[in-house]
Every structure is written in structure tokens, then in C-alpha cells.
């Protein structure tokens, strides 16, 4: 047998995998409770250390050291900050609308947390009480749920901006609503090729479809969608280069200008929690979820505890990798102008992602028509080739000052002529004064 034939056989065996029934009654309840506590704790501790990691990494990037005093290498810095923020005085602006002012950070915070309920974070464990699905709520509408909850996050920011009764906060809130609505559409569009390939919106089904050697990971078969998803995830989490809602240099601190102490901390935690959620989604949708690459061992029975723990470790490694990418990009790229942000979202990413859906759907259909099944290696390789071609085309050939128009890019000849005409007309209508300023 050739290696490819072996691979195919193994992948076929994978689909016939048998799992016992999930537990019921009291066992189910207790298990869910344990899972909830476990994932909440891990998530919060994770956020704590991601904040620390961000501060250390940004320091290293800028040739500094970062917080290294509290605990070994500064590992307890976030605890110290948390204690400080709890002890600090809560201030309430006199003209703020208090109910919403207090509610807003809570909305931001909870919506960031809620998404984690559906993310499968390890291989199922066939325990003696029955199969344990390693997601809190293995919902059949998984992905739609994440999109819906993700959209809730914007309410926190907009309400914070509005309830503060501060013009900078309001501007930050407005910007964030515009940004989030624009990029949520792109995010939804970017995900459709993945859903097409999986034929399902349940996250555990999407992971199952990608299971195997790593060849079926959606990042290889939907690369462009992955890039778009990543860009819109940056926009959704308000991270640089999309941090227009905060924009220190323009809006003081944007939507959270008026917040202090623990309420500010909640926004801060929410930002990092969102970042981890986006990373987890990227890992789940495009990088095979908890799948361990280059081996089939993790995808086949028996589903022992050790397998669950190892895949859990791999899933976290993937999350942390994306968190690192988030941090890395934040400390490299400067903030977009508002028009660049809107142009990128509406004029480039939305139409391109729509076209990409067509391309992927067509390619998938043609390959199936020729007789290449979606779970065969030929299908994956064909998709990979197509994607390499498209990536080179979009980011190598088309990207010539068109994706994001920099200040120094060439102005379109027509626009330049139009602008010159306007100037000429205005000069004719209003006789020039010596005050200057018009130019």
C-alpha cells in the first residue's frame, strides 16, 4: 500500500469511530458543573497571564524589560494589579446615566465569556460514566451562537460611550459600533466557506471534519477566509490596528475614558477575554480545533483520558499562538485612519469574501463531480493549490496601494482631476483673501 492509500484508509476508519452514550441525570449535572468551574478558572487565569504576556512581549519588542518584579519574572503582576483595582475608588461622573454606566462593563465582560460555552476544547473522553463532550454546551447551532454572542459585546462598548455623557466616550462608542457592524459582516462571510466544507454549523462537527493528519485543516483549504477572519477578529476585539474606539491620541481613552477602578478593569479583562475567544475560534474553525497534526492517534478510539488531556494541551497551544500573533501585530502596526478602516471592510473584504464563497463552492462541487470526495487527500491538496494561487493573486498582485490606501499612495487620475477642478472653481467663486488657510 502506498502511504497515501494508508492515509485514506486511516481516515476512513476515523469516520467509523464509535463513542458510548453521554452520561445522564446526576452524573451529567455534576460533570457539567465541573467543566464549568474548570473552564471558567482556566479562562480567567489565562486572561491574567495573557495580560502579563502582553506587557512583557511588548516590552521586549521595544527593547525594555516589562513588569518583572512581582513574583518570579513578574508572574504575579496581574494579581497585584487586580488587588489594586479592587481597592481603588470608584468614580461616577456627575452627568452619567448610572444604570447603563454600571451595566456596560458587565455586558462587555459576560459576552466575552459566554462564547466559551460552545467551543470544544478537547477530544471527547469515553469515561465509565459515558462519553464526555469537552464543550460546556455542545450546541448544534454552535457557530451561529458565537456570532450572536459576539455581536452583544458591542452593546457594552456603545452603552459605555453613551452613558458616560462625555463627547470622547461617545465618539469612541460610535466608532466601535460602526466598526463592529462592518466587520461582523465580513466575519460571517469569511466563515461560510468553512461551513460549506463542513456541511454543518456545529463547532464539534467542524472540528471533526478537519480531523486527521492536518491536511484537512481549513487554514489550508480556506486560506483567504482565514486571513479575512483574522483581520475581522482584530476589528471585533478592538485591537490595533483597529483600536479606533480607544484611540488614545484622539479620544483620551475612547469609550472607557470615564471608567475607573474595577469597572475599567472589567473592560480591560473583556478585551483580553475577547482576544482569547477570537483565538479559540480561529483555532477551532481553521486550525483543526483540538486536533494534533501529523498523527491520527488522537482521532481514533479508544478515547482515553490521556488523549483528552493531550488534545486539550494542543488546543491551548494553538490559542496561545494566536494570542501571541495578536500581541505581535499590536506592537507592530499603527492604527488605521477611519476611511481606511471603512474602505478595507466594505470595499475590499466584503466583495472579496463573497467572491471567495463562490470560488470555494465551485471548486468543491467540481472536485466532487470529477469524483474526488471531500475527505480524501486529493481534495485537500486541490484546495491548497487553489488557495496558494488566490493568496498570491490577492496579496501579491492586487495589493498595490489598493487594499489599504496609505497617505502616500498614488491618487487615482480621475480623482486628482476632480479635486483640481474643485479648487479651480472655488478660487473663481471666492476671490482670494490674504488670510490664507484655504490651502
Amino acid at each position: 500500500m502506498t502511504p497515501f492509500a494508508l492515509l485514506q484508509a486511516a481516515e476512513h476508519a476515523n469516520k467509523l469511530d464509535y463513542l458510548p452514550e453521554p452520561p445522564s441525570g446526576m452524573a451529567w449535572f455534576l460533570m457539567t458543573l465541573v467543566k464549568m468551574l474548570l473552564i471558567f478558572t482556566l479562562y480567567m487565569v489565562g486572561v491574567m497571564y495573557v495580560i502579563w504576556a502582553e506587557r512583557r512581549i511588548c516590552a521586549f519588542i521595544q527593547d525594555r524589560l516589562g513588569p518583572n518584579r512581582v513574583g518570579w519574572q513578574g508572574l504575579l503582576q496581574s494579581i497585584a494589579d487586580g488587588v489594586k483595582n479592587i481597592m481603588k475608588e470608584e468614580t461616577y461622573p456627575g452627568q452619567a446615566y448610572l444604570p447603563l454606566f454600571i451595566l456596560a462593563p458587565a455586558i462587555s465582560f459576560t459576552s466575552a465569556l459566554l462564547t466559551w460555552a460552545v467551543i470544544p476544547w478537547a477530544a471527547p473522553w469515553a469515561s465509565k460514566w459515558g462519553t464526555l463532550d469537552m464543550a460546556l454546551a455542545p450546541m448544534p447551532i454552535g457557530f451561529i451562537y458565537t456570532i450572536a454572542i459576539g455581536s452583544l459585546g458591542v452593546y457594552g462598548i456603545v452603552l459605555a460611550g453613551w452613558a458616560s455623557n462625555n463627547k470622547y466616550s461617545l465618539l469612541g462608542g460610535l466608532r466601535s459600533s460602526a466598526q463592529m457592524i462592518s466587520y461582523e459582516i465580513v466575519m460571517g462571510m469569511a466563515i461560510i466557506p468553512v461551513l460549506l466544507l463542513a456541511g454543518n454549523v456545529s463547532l464539534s462537527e467542524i472540528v471533526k471534519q478537519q480531523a486527521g493528519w492536518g491536511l484537512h485543516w481549513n487554514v489550508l483549504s480556506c486560506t483567504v477566509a482565514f486571513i479575512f477572519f483574522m483581520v475581522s477578529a482584530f476589528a471585533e476585539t478592538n485591537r490595533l490596528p483597529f483600536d479606533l474606539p480607544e484611540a488614545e491620541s484622539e479620544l483620551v481613552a475612547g469609550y472607557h475614558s470615564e471608567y475607573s477602578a474595577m469597572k475599567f478593569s472589567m473592560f480591560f479583562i473583556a478585551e483580553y477575554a475577547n482576544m482569547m475567544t477570537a483565538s479559540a475560534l480561529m483555532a477551532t474553525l481553521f486550525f483543526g480545533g483540538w486536533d494534533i497534526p501529523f498523527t491520527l492517534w488522537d482521532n481514533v478510539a479508544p478515547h482515553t483520558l490521556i488523549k483528552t488531556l493531550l488534545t486539550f494541551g494542543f488546543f491551548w497551544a494553538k490559542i496561545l499562538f494566536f494570542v501571541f500573533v495578536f500581541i505581535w501585530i499590536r506592537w507592530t502596526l499603527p492604527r488605521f485612519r477611519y476611511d481606511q478602516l471603512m474602505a478595507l471592510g466594505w470595499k475590499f473584504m466584503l466583495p472579496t469574501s463573497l467572491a471567495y464563497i463562490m470560488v470555494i463552492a465551485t471548486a468543491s462541487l467540481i472536485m466532487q463531480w470529477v469524483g474526488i470526495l471531500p475527505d480524501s487527500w486529493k481534495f485537500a491538496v486541490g484546495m491548497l493549490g487553489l488557495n496558494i494561487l488566490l493568496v498570491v493573486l490577492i496579496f501579491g498582485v492586487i495589493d498595490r496601494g489598493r487594499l489599504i490606501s496609505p497617505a502616500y499612495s498614488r491618487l487615482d487620475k480621475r480623482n486628482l482631476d476632480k479635486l483640481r477642478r474643485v479648487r479651480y472653481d472655488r478660487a473663481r467663486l471666492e476671490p482670494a483673501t490674504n488670510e490664507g488657510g484655504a490651502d
Partner: protein
Amino acid sequence: MAIGVKVLERPIAETSYVRAAVKGMALTLKHLLNGESVTYQYPEQKWGLSPRWRGTHRMLTTEDGKAKCVACGLCPTVCPANCIKLVPGEDENGNRYPLVFEIDEFRCIFCGYCQEVCPEEAIHLGRHYENSEYSREGFVYDLERLMAQTHPVSELWDPADPKGE
């Protein structure tokens, strides 16, 4: 508004956002992996001070442990911040000495005039800057405290050797 903006004709390769971004990310990664930190770990690690650094005052003493000050009154006169309090006294041999000599380090602007004007080379500024206190009163250094300082004194600027070589 955009009319007055001068549009530069750039080579087309420079207008690619993706390429510029990737380049920038390579640079930051290089710094992340083997960037050398410029941070001074302050309490343990300190900058060297210039020999002309003007910090906390010192009153120099004679060999028998008395302040060199003769209470001539030049330093409180020249002090632009008015931070030196001097009450002169005289002993039975007719030697003048300061009864009270206080410097408010909180008021002091560390101009160094007192050191320049002192005929006895008694009051000096020093190469020292770590003086923190819990109260404003703590910054008023009396004669004893000024004499007890041990840090090196700052050098005066020499017009004949302006660069201190």
C-alpha cells in the same frame, strides 16, 4: 482640504500594505528574540552621575569635626529660591559660626550658587539624588544633617576648561 496635499509618486512596490506590514513584523520579531534591553534595573543598577551633578547639599567640616562655615551670610543672600536659613553666632575668641543653618531641599532649585559663592568652601552640592521623605518638614536639613552627608561633592564648572577634560 485634500487639495493642498502633495502626492508623491512612489515606486509601486512601496505602496503594498501587506509587504510593509510583513517587513515591520519581521523587525519587531527580531527585537523580541534578540533585542538588547536598555532598561536600568533601578534600585540595583544605577546610572553614573556627572562630576558636575548638583544634588543634595553637604557641609564640609574641619579636621576637628566642626563645620567650615563662618556664617558670613553670602549663601542666603545669593540663594534665588530663598531656601537657606542662617543665624550667625560668635564664640568668645571672636570666631563666627552658624547658630542655625538650615537648607530646605524641597525649595532648593539646585543652582549651585551657594557653593560658588562660599568663601570657605564649606557648603557644597553633592552627587546624590535619592532624598525622599514622608513629610515636607523632613526636607529641611539642619546643620548636623548636612554635616553627616557622605556622598561626593559636585565640582564647579571651570571656565578655563569648559568641557571638564
